[in-house]
């Protein structure tokens, strides 16, 4: 048992952090929200070069296999830097196509996965679990949809030929549109589609949880920096106990969401049958913690935090949007209680007080 990032994993996170810090991500986020995807695409290429999109693509299709711990590390950094684009959706699409390949249907995987892994293809994805909209369908090279999963074995994986009008999100950097029905090419119809889509939705929720954790960490980091330099009543506001305690609570929420995100990664590594409940737990904890961090960040920044031109807004808005993306808090809580959640290793949930004759 070693529930700790190894040196290589930790260094991977630091490398991404350095790269994204140098890339002036906020400028890319703002441009993305305005529909100018050039800077975002350039950033995407660098993230791909660092290997992020290969982390959920099988080796047979030029990926690195499924590496959920590394994926969690990278999505925390993507969230910390508020990177725009269908990051979660591209990874989940990789899992979906990889899942089909694993079940013998390699055509779509061979066509798309090498491009996803290399960052050439920016992919959006619409699944029932994720709601009616596809994220950034207007910017993506392709949007996959799974339809017709109402009866067993009839699920169909298609590409869409287009999308409806962009529906602005509370987070301007998230551009939502409904995929056009009945268009595009059919890639697969088989019982495997349904299973692969379910796995893809799990990975989407997992990556979103990690991204959300990163958003929360950035909110606390930025607010701590602000509280150290902002002066009121002739003193640094960070010296006030009321300020300290709000930030301490925000940190506690995040530091206890982190092990759940890592725990979900371990569950996915082991292909645990109960990974879904662990992902749901991580999603709830990260979502609540990041949202609490956003409220704290706004309160402690005061009016400046309430302006769109100040970069803090990029994270504040994302924290709210991600809370419901790929699994609402309510749905996740229901899932946590639906199955035997995370019994202690070797401890049967049925274990009760021992009886002595």
């Amino acid at each position, binding site marked *: 048992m070693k529930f700790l990032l190894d040196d290589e994993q930790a260094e991977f996170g630091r490398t991404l952090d350095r790269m994204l810090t140098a890339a002036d991500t906020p400028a890319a986020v703002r441009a993305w929200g305005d529909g100018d995807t050039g800077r975002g695409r350039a950033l995407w290429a660098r993230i791909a070069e660092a290997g992020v999109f290969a982390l959920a693509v099988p080796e047979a299709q030029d990926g690195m296999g499924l590496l959920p711990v590394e994926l969690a590390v990278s999505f925390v950094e993507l969230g910390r830097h508020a990177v725009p684009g269908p990051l979660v959706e591209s990874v989940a699409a990789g899992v979906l196509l990889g899942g089909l390949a694993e079940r013998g249907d390699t055509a779509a995987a061979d066509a798309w996965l090498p491009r996803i892994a290399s960052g050439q293809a920016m992919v959006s994805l619409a699944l029932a679990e994720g709601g009616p909209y596809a994220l950034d369908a207007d910017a993506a090279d392709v949007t996959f949809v799974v339809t017709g999963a109402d009866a067993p074995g009839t699920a169909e994986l298609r590409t869409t030929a287009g999308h409806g009008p962009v529906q602005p999100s509370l987070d301007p950097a998230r551009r939502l549109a409904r995929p056009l029905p009945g268009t595009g090419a059919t890639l697969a119809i088989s019982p495997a589609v349904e299973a692969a889509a379910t796995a893809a939705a799990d990975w989407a929720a997992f990556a979103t949880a990690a991204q959300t954790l990163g958003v929360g960490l950035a909110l606390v980091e930025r607010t701590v920096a602000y509280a150290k330099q902002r002066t009121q009543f002739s003193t640094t506001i960070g010296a006030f106990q009321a300020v300290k*305690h709000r930030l*301490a609570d925000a940190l506690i929420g995040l530091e206890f969401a982190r092990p759940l995100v890592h725990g979900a990664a371990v569950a996915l590594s082991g292909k645990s049958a109960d990974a879904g409940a662990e992902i749901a737990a991580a999603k709830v904890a990260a979502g609540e913690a990041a949202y609490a961090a956003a409220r704290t960040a706004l309160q402690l920044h005061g009016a400046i935090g309430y302006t769109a031109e100040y970069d803090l807004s990029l994270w504040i808005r994302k924290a709210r949007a991600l809370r419901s993306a790929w699994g609402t808090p309510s749905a996740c809580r229901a899932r946590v209680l639906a199955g035997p*959640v995370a019994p202690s290793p070797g401890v049967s949930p049925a274990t009760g*007080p021992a009886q002595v004759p």
Partner: protein
Amino acid sequence: MDLDFTTEDDAFRAEARDWLAAHVPARPLPSLETSEGFAAHRAWERTLSTGRWSAVSWPVEQGGRGASILHWLIFEEEYYAAGAPGRVSQNGINLLAPTLFEHGSPEQRARILPAMASGEVIWAQAWSEPESGSDLASLRSTAVRVAGGWLLNGQKAWSSRAAFADRAFGLFRSDPGADRPHRGLTYLMFPLDAKGVTVRPVGRLDGKPAFAELFLDDVFVPDEDVIGEPGRGWQVAMSTAGNERGLTLRSPGRFTAAAEKLTALWRDEADPADTALRDRVADAVIRSRAYRLFTYANASRIAAGASIGAESSLNKVFWSELDISLHETALDLLGPRGELSDEAGEAPADGSWADGYTFSLAGPIYAGTNEIQRDIIAERLLGLPKGRRS
């Protein structure tokens, strides 16, 4: 990164589980905050030590098993899953013993630890004073040098277990002229039945004498009962405080077991349409899981050679609030029956939810209030400037 246990870990777990299955009392013991319950829990400590399970992380020479921190966590998981009694020796085993291992003499360890492990001597904590709680550096009880030892005078408050315990440990001001309030303190141990000691039990919220006030009037303590160097009691005590807030006081096994019990209660009792209550149950499960994994991460860091410092304050705030919300949710689930005290014959689960609720309310207050913990988190982990607290 993994959560895999070795076959050796599994064997240790199985041994603990089997032993507990054979020895845990079928019926819960009476509350350890009563005279009768205290005696029953003392007997249970004896039983535990007979199986060498009372202090698994101690060296074998002192009655332990030399268990690693991971094995200690495994044992605790099994302990709470088995529904075993609360630990009346907790103050000694979790707070005094680590201090003795770090600062005590070999003679002190040999004299004190085996009797602690067997439950023969139960220890009370005597740190707080009427004017000195979280601000421990302000304490005023004195220790004055005399031939062969020290004379203690003053008053201690809120001494856990002191109503029934045998001995106590605490800090005393031995150099009133020291230039800083936390200098000139000495860490001493004394018998609660010594000449000059008056014990006044104080009822906690539910009236049970869970702690006591101690009045000390020229109580003689021999040199052999000073821990560490005289005058350096603050440094000695701080290593104990870290233990109290950190890993040892509230093991995740306790919350994992409580969350499982709560989930079972929800399945049995709750209206499935009450999603607000369902969400609270889910949160208790999620947070107990988070606490367990957080602890595993810390255990892994410790095993890799790191030490846990201010991070223990994150722990303390989290578990104390989790403990309350677990019990509040259970009482709400029970509806009108949730009001029954643990002394009520019809109290659900033999009163364990009601008793646990009362106990949980103290969590944010003791072991350094949560306000102090949040200051530590803000200053040492987030790097915010110090406030007026010196």
